[in-house]
């Protein structure tokens, strides 16, 4: 009986666990389509009414506009933002942030048409969520939290929180450990986190530069080739401005119809040493100048299904097709590129993840040059075809579900009812009701039996 109850509980939960997250783009649906905001109109941002350390509310408005412009200002992009003042007129603090913070699928915040931008002036919100002393450390967090329908193609709701406590001039408290958030930290955090909210994942381009010890925090531009979407803040002043790799993912998701006309594309499909599709390898186009490096993760846009509900699609059988495919966009036809397959650092999982292998990167990938591209023309594509590598870790492409080969009933449950993240008013309500009625009937039956 206990097993049945647990299974019923799990089944109910699985109805509501269909969101999928993948690499390059932050969220990809089961058709391999990346989630984006509708860029036919401006993406609305709703800043709160309070201050952020020494910055007044209007100064923070200016700062948001300045930092989102790093994305909307990319040549060839169709993306605008609209700051809507007054929707959140109050000062948001630890005492009232729950009115705006979305952390559950039943949260009214998913349907409030607000994309709050919160200034956590005394870091009370950060302390509530991540523990006391992390208020001196967490710079901010953000992301999409609502989608138009079950396809997850259109993001309709997001949120962003920025910690102001250790910014110079904050009278609220002294920060332990001599920690100070610089204005560069705030600007970088805004740009990086809004990037996630727009649907951009992390990238490991120019990792060697990031892991070197040559970045001088006081010197502007010496580490400008560390991308904005690199998983770590290495030299925030230099990482505020998007690197070419950041621009390409932004253009891939929001580029206008002609952005690729003057650029070239390289496509291919990786297999491992046994000929199986090789997913989660970093395919980098390099010129010898770190300014030009562009990367894409193989299989990042592959149709995939999060059968085990763990938030990633790197489980067995979860990648459905095209799992080793890659498309390197935005290459300059005037440059010669070396195309190299690299492993993704094993550290880039969880919060630092480079998807789609967000729960653990492949260990069998051998770094190897797979091609040199010297003949790419404007608007053209160089198709490398299937490229067999010396790596191991290829996968068998799935069949759209777990095939019940593990003896569980996950697949039949999933067919019954699929929930999108903002659908709790429409289809999800029917899902909720169906599941609740089933469970209610069961409980009534058990009570009637005197159990």
């Amino acid at each position, binding site marked *: 009986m*206990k097993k049945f*109850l*647990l299974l*019923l*509980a*799990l089944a*109910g*939960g699985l109805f*509501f*666990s*269909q*969101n999928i*997250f993948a690499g390059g783009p932050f969220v990809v649906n089961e058709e391999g389509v990346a989630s984006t905001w509708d860029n036919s109109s401006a993406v609305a941002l709703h800043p709160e009414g309070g201050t952020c350390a020494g910055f007044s509310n209007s100064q923070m408005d200016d700062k948001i506009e300045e930092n989102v412009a790093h994305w909307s200002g990319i040549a060839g992009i169709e993306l605008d933002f609209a700051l809507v003042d007054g929707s959140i007129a109050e000062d948001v603090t630890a005492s009232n942030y729950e009115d705006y913070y979305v*952390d*559950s*699928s039943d949260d009214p915040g*998913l349907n409030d048409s607000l994309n709050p931008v919160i200034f956590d002036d005394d870091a009370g919100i950060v*302390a*509530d*969520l*991540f*523990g*006391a*002393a*992390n208020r*001196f*450390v*967490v*710079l901010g*967090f*953000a*992301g*999409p*939290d609502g989608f138009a329908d079950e396809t997850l193609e259109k993001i309709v709701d997001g*949120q962003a929180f920025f910690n102001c406590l*250790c910014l110079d001039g904050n009278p609220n408290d002294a920060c*332990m*450990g*001599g*920690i100070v958030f610089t204005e560069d*930290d705030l600007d970088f955090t805004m740009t990086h*986190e809004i990037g*996630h909210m727009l649907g951009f994942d992390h990238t490991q381009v120019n990792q060697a530069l990031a*892991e070197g*010890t040559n970045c001088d925090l006081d010197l502007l531009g010496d580490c400008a080739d560390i991308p904005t979407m690199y998983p*770590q803040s290495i030299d925030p002043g230099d990482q505020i401005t998007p690197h070419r790799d950041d621009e390409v993912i932004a253009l891939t998701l929001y580029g206008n119809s002609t952005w690729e006309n003057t650029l070239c594309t390289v496509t291919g499909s990786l297999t491992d040493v046994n000929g199986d599709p090789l997913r989660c390898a970093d395919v980098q186009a390099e010129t010898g100048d770190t300014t030009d490096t562009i990367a894409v993760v193989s299989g990042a846009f592959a149709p995939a299904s999060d059968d*085990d*509900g*763990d*938030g*990633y699609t790197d489980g067995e059988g979860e990648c459905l097709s095209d799992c080793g495919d890659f498309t390197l966009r935005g290459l300059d036809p005037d440059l010669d590129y070396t195309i190299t397959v690299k492993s993704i650092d094993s*550290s880039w999982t*969880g*919060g630092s*993840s480079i998807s789609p292998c967000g*729960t653990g990167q492949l260990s069998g990938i051998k770094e190897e040059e797979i091609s040199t591209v010297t003949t790419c023309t404007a608007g053209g594509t160089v198709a490398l075809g299937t490229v067999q590598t010396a790596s191991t870790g290829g996968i068998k492409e799935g069949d759209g579900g777990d095939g019940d080969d593990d003896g569980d009933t996950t697949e039949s449950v999933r067919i019954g009812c699929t929930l999108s*993240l903002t659908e709790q008013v429409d289809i999800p309500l029917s899902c*909720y009701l169906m599941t609740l009625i089933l*469970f209610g009937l069961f409980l009534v039956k058990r009570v009637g039996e005197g*159990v």
Partner: protein
Amino acid sequence: MKIKTKLFSLFIFFTILFSSPFAGALSVKTLTLKQMVELADRIVRLTVTDIRLGEEGGRTVRYITGDVDEWIKGSGSDTLVFSQLPDTGESAGDIQVSSKMGLPSYEVGKTYLLMLAGDSENTGLTAPIGIWQGHMVLEKQNGKWVVPSMKTRPSLIKALGKSTNSYDDLKSAIKTILEE
């Protein structure tokens, strides 16, 4: 027992039903080892024995229980239980959480060096200091504990003054900081 089973099942049901859909990400300040040691409320070498979801203050949380192999900062019993936002998509027994903010994950049976922030006064929640920075998976190699991720943590290597992944070297550096 049967009533408990029903209540537990109801709890699991609603826990999963209302699990977070938020797909977010965190940015943190890169800390030096000295800062991590100073900010941490507790530093332990801990082997995780249990992970389960629960509810606290109307919010789904993850309880992590572990056997403390070694208290390096702070003191307490041989068992440590702390709560963290459930997040990383990992499963806890039969329960799976679909949200993704990217907080550190844990696995039963694995050993970690954890530098934990003090629990929030309001929520009881905590997380490793600097989120991923205060969370290090340990592995035994040739009978000695090592920190495999050390190479991607230049601030730690800098603090140790040499390229090493030795847990003993790291612990020694932490103790030196604590004694200062």
